[in-house]
């Protein structure tokens, strides 16, 4: 039996990679994927904790996270498409019109 803490460690690594992806990539699609990766990492940790304490709520929560993620992807991708239509580019560094 694998110690459950390993899973948590894996989740931490994946989360860090995801965060790094958000910070260093300029393609919003990849940023999005990174966000998905972070969510997945969190899910993994949650399932692992559910296993440790044998409570179902952890899994239930993962279920809801997935739903939210699905909704978020739908809206987010739609936003990207809409932005692409107006700016003809999706380079995230070109979207700085909110500059103070």
């Amino acid at each position, binding site marked *: 039996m694998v110690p459950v803490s390993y899973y948590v460690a894996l989740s931490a690594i994946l989360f860090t990679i995801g*965060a790094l992806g958000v*910070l260093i990539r300029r393609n919003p699609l990849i940023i999005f994927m990174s966000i998905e990766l972070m969510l997945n990492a969190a899910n993994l940790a949650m399932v692992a904790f559910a296993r440790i304490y044998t409570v179902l709520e952890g899994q239930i929560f993962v279920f809801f996270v997935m739903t939210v993620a699905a909704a978020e992807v739908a809206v987010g991708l739609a936003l990207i498409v809409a932005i692409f239509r107006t700016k003809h580019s999706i380079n995230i*560094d070109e*979207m*700085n*019109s*909110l*500059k*103070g």
Partner: protein
Amino acid sequence: MTFFYLAPWIVFFPVIGLLVNMIFGGRFSEKVIGTVASLASGLAFVCSVLLAYSLTGHPEAFRWTIGEWIHIGTLQLDWTFRVDTLSTTMMLVVSGVGTLIHIYAIGYMHEDVRFKSDLKRFRRFFVFLNLFIAAMMILVGGDSYLMLFVGWEGVGLCSFLLIGFWYEMDTLARPSWANSNAAKKAMIANRIGDFGFLIASFLMFWAFHSLQFDQVFQQAPAIAASNPGLITAITLFLLLGVTGKSAQIPLFVWLPDAMAGPTPVSALIHAATMVTAGVYLIARSAALYVTVPAAQFIVAMVGALTAIFAATIAVGQYDIKKVLAYSTISQLGFMVAGVGMGAFAAGMFHLVTHAFFKALLFLSAGSVILGMERGHHHLAHHKGHDEHGDPHEEVFDPNDMRNMGGLRKTMPVTFWVYLIGALALAGIFPFAGFWSKDEILANAQQGGFTAVYWLLAIAAFFTAFYMGRQIWMVFFGEPRHEAAAHAEESPKVVTVPLMVLAALSVVGGALNLPGVETLTKWLEHTVEFIKPSEFIMSVALISTALALIAIFISWLLYGRKPLKAGEVDPLKKMLGPIFTGMERRWFVDEGYKALFIDRYVDIARFTADVIDWKFWHDWFHEKVIAGTYNWLSNVMLNRYADQRGIDGFFNGLGEWTKNAAAGLRRFQNGFVRSYALFVLIGVVAILGYLLFK
């Protein structure tokens, strides 16, 4: 067999008639519209007859409630119709004369030069006429002062609408505000009277705790004994209402202007029925008036003064309808004086006969006007083609008696009926006017109202004179205008009602012949205070003699040597400025305008422009409120308190904030990625804090 349940139908029939014409009238022809309206009025007449018939076997007042109206605490008012001998008398007059005039109007309106085949106008006229009948029926059929008031104002409205019927032109069909001004004047004068009526009803309610006739009259003697001033006040305020509606001094000025309406309207509303509502009101309130002799005297004096004052003006008029209008005012003065003296039967009697002969006179005058217009039209068509497009280039007034003359030959039927009417009005034996006028005079002499008696007698003299003058000027002599020479007789639909009315004017006196006194006995059931009047031979002789003398003088002046075209009125040559006074209505209108109307307009303008707008709205609001506020905020605080202490502190704070913001602004670079970076810094920092705290 009684038909009392028909009481509300005297109102419903005209209302149904007007609704039918209003809703479906667009598809009807002139004939159908006229027939519907006349039928509605005629059915109301039939109802009235049946009601009167029912009363013969059951003379007490009958009340028929159709619905609740205003019930608040002790104020209990219902829609109740009252059928008694007084109200049915009025109903018969209103619907009877009304129906005849409806029929006449079918012909008249078609002929009117201003009509121009506008079917909508035709329909509107009959809708208004039916509305008038309905309102008048409410007036005479109501069982409380307030329901009477509903009709009272309702007929005022109809009067407004019908005077202003040709609202966009004057009597000569030129574009003008004149008719609508006349309409407005009538309504406002009436409203002043209504003000009196309202105050009277308030006084009455708080004295008697009711406005229902029976309840008021029952308590009247007791209250008159304890507080006669109150009853006097009530009766005098009612008198103000009467002077408005029945065109007495001081509110009579609207009636002559009301002649702007179509002639059937003048006949129906402004001669036969509506203007007599005031007389009806006093007769109805007999129980109140008899308790306060002082008020009775005032009423009688107002009536008598009006009678003579208006009669003098009538002498100086040239417009055929204006003469009749002043004559109406004068005759209303007779009636008011009659009922004021307590001679209720005599007043009502004169009301009925006057309805006959004055309606006749007006309608015949309408016939004359139509004849003149036809003559003029005829003329315009024959006179060459160049002015065909505009036949009214030369201003021709078909109402002006100076343009007439010699119509006896061209319009014989009209002449004869007119003559009958004139004789009746002048009080010549045995026409209707003789009996009724005589009864009033007899009552005046008998009741000790000597001043009233002489005033009325002189007024009767003037009456005979101006009617004689009119007859000579219109029908005798030579035509003074080519239109008069080419005048044509009116069609049957116009002349037949005239003949019916003429017959009534001849035999109307039979209603209350001395010794028989049908009307007095009939009214006795309702008005308990009727004094049995006697026939006084001396009075009859004096008045007849005066009338004959007047007619003789008028013959001397106008008949013996007929007026030529363009010639000055012989009376003017004789009387000079006095005649000018008569002609210009003793300058009453000008006086009212200068004293009241212009003053009111000035006050209203001043209040609106200066007080309300310049002072209150602009100066007070802008300068005082807004100005003070600005002054306080800008000058006071800014200069003294602010700039030194508070300002310094807050300016410093502001500067600091500005600088800090300028520094922090750099973080706000618009790149999402760097925002995310800052978020991560936060996450790392918080996590670190949690781990190593």
